């Protein structure tokens, strides 16, 4: 064989190997925590990843925001250490992924946003009216029911253009969950899901698609994620809660809603399929100050981590420490990113859940 070829190849091989070996040996071995799921909490988790890396340089969190559906799938297939979802597992999904723990990590809200020329924020809505608008039963802005709620404004005699999300999303799930709770007709004809069979309206892809359609079409109404509405200064409406107040969407009113729901939360290792902030406060007349269209975003973690194929005790311990950090110190980063910090009741609930996590039967968090 020709040495002119062999010698350079061997030389390159040696150099490459030694570079990798040097990198591998010179650093303390990093532990990578793989996660996947919802897009809604991604900016927050991304922030956590960066901040946690500053505190623990040997821990790398790798989170892929592929959507709640994908997160649940990967969690069920045990290809990630943790999943993230905007909705709790359904009974079926919980049966497919037994011993899943639900850990609420943050809170989101969905707001009705509209484009009526000359109208600023604060148009008042009830759940029934929102349901009838999105069912196509209220078709004019000067509908008598809307006028009665908003006597101080003069509503125009124009057709309402309804805009909804076209892509499957947690935002749609939360919004349709609310409308299903409020309106029997909505519940039986449209239902709640990440995508539904919309009776009327245009579909925009993503929050930006909905916002684009609304801003270009005067007399339109749609719904978007609160963070997106806030960052883009959209005009939003107030929604009536069971206590009869018209509540402005805000971090405080979401947090209030979550704390009213906290008392109803099941144990971390039980089925959470029925958990919904909306369900638990929509008829609660005591829930003053609570904005009704509010929901949790969850971490999904197995109770016994040895079910994951490439998990070891170190990684398991690291994962649990990271989760503990996110529900405590991690929450301090919420406000700057316009996420809602978890109320104290939920944090306490989560602490009990995280203490349940074991590896080979050994409790991992000892605090």
């Amino acid at each position, binding site marked *: *064989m*020709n040495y002119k070829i062999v010698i350079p190849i061997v030389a390159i091989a040696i150099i490459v190997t030694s570079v990798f070996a040097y990198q591998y040996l010179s650093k303390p071995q990093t532990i990578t925590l793989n996660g996947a799921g919802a897009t809604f909490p991604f900016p927050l988790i991304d922030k956590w990843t960066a901040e946690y890396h500053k505190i623990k340089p040997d821990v790398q969190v790798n989170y892929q925001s*592929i*959507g*709640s*559906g*994908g997160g*649940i799938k990967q969690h069920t297939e045990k290809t990630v250490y943790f999943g993230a979802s905007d909705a709790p597992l*359904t009974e*079926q*999904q919980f049966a497919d992924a037994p011993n899943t723990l639900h850990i609420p990590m943050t809170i989101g809200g969905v707001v009705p946003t509209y484009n009526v020329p000359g109208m600023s924020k604060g148009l008042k809505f009830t759940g029934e009216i929102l349901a009838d608008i999105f069912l196509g039963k209220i078709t004019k802005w000067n509908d008598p029911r809307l006028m009665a709620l908003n006597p101080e404004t003069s509503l125009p005699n124009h*057709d309402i*253009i309804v805009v909804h999300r*076209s*892509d*499957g*999303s*947690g935002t749609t799930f939360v919004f*349709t969950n609310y409308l299903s709770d409020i309106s029997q007709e909505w519940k*039986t*004809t*449209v*239902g*709640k*899901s*990440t*995508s*539904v*069979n*919309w009776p009327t*309206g*245009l*579909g*925009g*892809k993503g929050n*930006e*698609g909905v916002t*684009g*359609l609304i801003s*270009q*079409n005067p007399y339109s109404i749609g719904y978007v994620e609160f963070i997106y509405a806030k960052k883009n200064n959209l005009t939003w409406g107030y929604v009536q809660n069971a206590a009869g107040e018209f509540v402005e969407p805000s971090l405080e009113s979401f947090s209030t809603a979550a704390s009213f729901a906290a008392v109803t939360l099941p144990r971390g290792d039980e089925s959470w399929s029925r958990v919904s902030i909306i369900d638990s406060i929509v008829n609660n007349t005591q829930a003053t100050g609570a904005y009704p269209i509010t929901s949790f975003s969850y971490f999904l973690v197995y109770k016994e981590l040895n079910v994951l194929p490439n998990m070891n005790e170190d990684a398991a311990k690291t994962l649990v420490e990271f989760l503990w950090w996110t529900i405590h110190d991690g929450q301090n980063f919420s406000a700057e990113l316009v996420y809602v910090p978890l109320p104290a009741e939920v944090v306490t609930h989560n602490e009990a859940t995280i203490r349940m996590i074991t590896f080979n039967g050994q409790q991992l968090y000892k605090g």
Partner: protein
Amino acid sequence: MKSSRKPPVFIHNLNVKVHKIFKKPLTGDYAFKLLAATFASIIFLILGLMIYELIKGSQLSLQRFGIEFLIGTKWDPAISQVFGVLPLILGTLVTSAIALLIGVPISLCIGLALSEYAPKRFGFAISFLVELLAAVPSVIYGLWGIFTLIPFLRNNVYAYLQGILGFIPLFSGPIYGGGVLTGGIILAIMIIPTVSAVSRDVFSAVPNTQREAMISLGATKWETAKNVISYARSGVIGAIILGLGRAVGETMAITMVIGNKFQLLPSSLFDAWYTMSAIIANEFTEATYGLYVSALIEVGLVLFFVALIINVLARLVVWRSLKLVRGIARE
């Protein structure tokens, strides 16, 4: 040094084995032929695997709905969990047809200009720019559609169009900006690079004797060009069908501008509609249960076959045109 070129023992042994199997020595030439043939046949494997995976993935939905899936007009993932794709098939074909109606004349003009009229350097610049259009990612077309094209069409074009043609139902009704016509226009822009490049090539393939004959008969430049088009017509049809294939499969841009309204027929060209690729892009990531995922995969299967049919047609037409050109050149 001749002796150093002699292959090592293990190569020799391998050679003997190969010889036993194929009755031929493993020379460089033969080895390369084998390698190329292997990679070429992988294409069949990939295509077969794709169809297999699509059918396997859509089992649940195939069994549940059967033919109902193709003729069904309801898409309800939440309550009844019934899926039917007829509106999506229609939406896909109609938006693609609009794209052809708008895009093809423009593309043919570009092709003609490049092959018949343009001076070399200018022609080079034009074809470079047109091919650059093909390299723009479709999500960019989509965003440009939302933020630039839709407001422009809404404010400057559609209102006038409705004013003039409003008595025809096709041009009546509310104008949202996005919709069937906007989707068709975006697709038209996206197929122009394909159609114009292929038609330029088929026009250039027309033998010069044709042009010389026309000119010697006293034909004008335009009459000569008409003759070139008619000579290359089967190639032009091939180009159009390739463009149609592109339009049918286009996903991101159309999703962002068509309005995504699931209905059998829109009330006008300004109304919103839906396409097969758009619903997959929209709903696949958050499809939460088996039948739903399966139905979306079956949409992929249907789209695959629609695209396949179109591509087979394109191939047949292009082959015919090539035979024609070669046949005449031989005479």
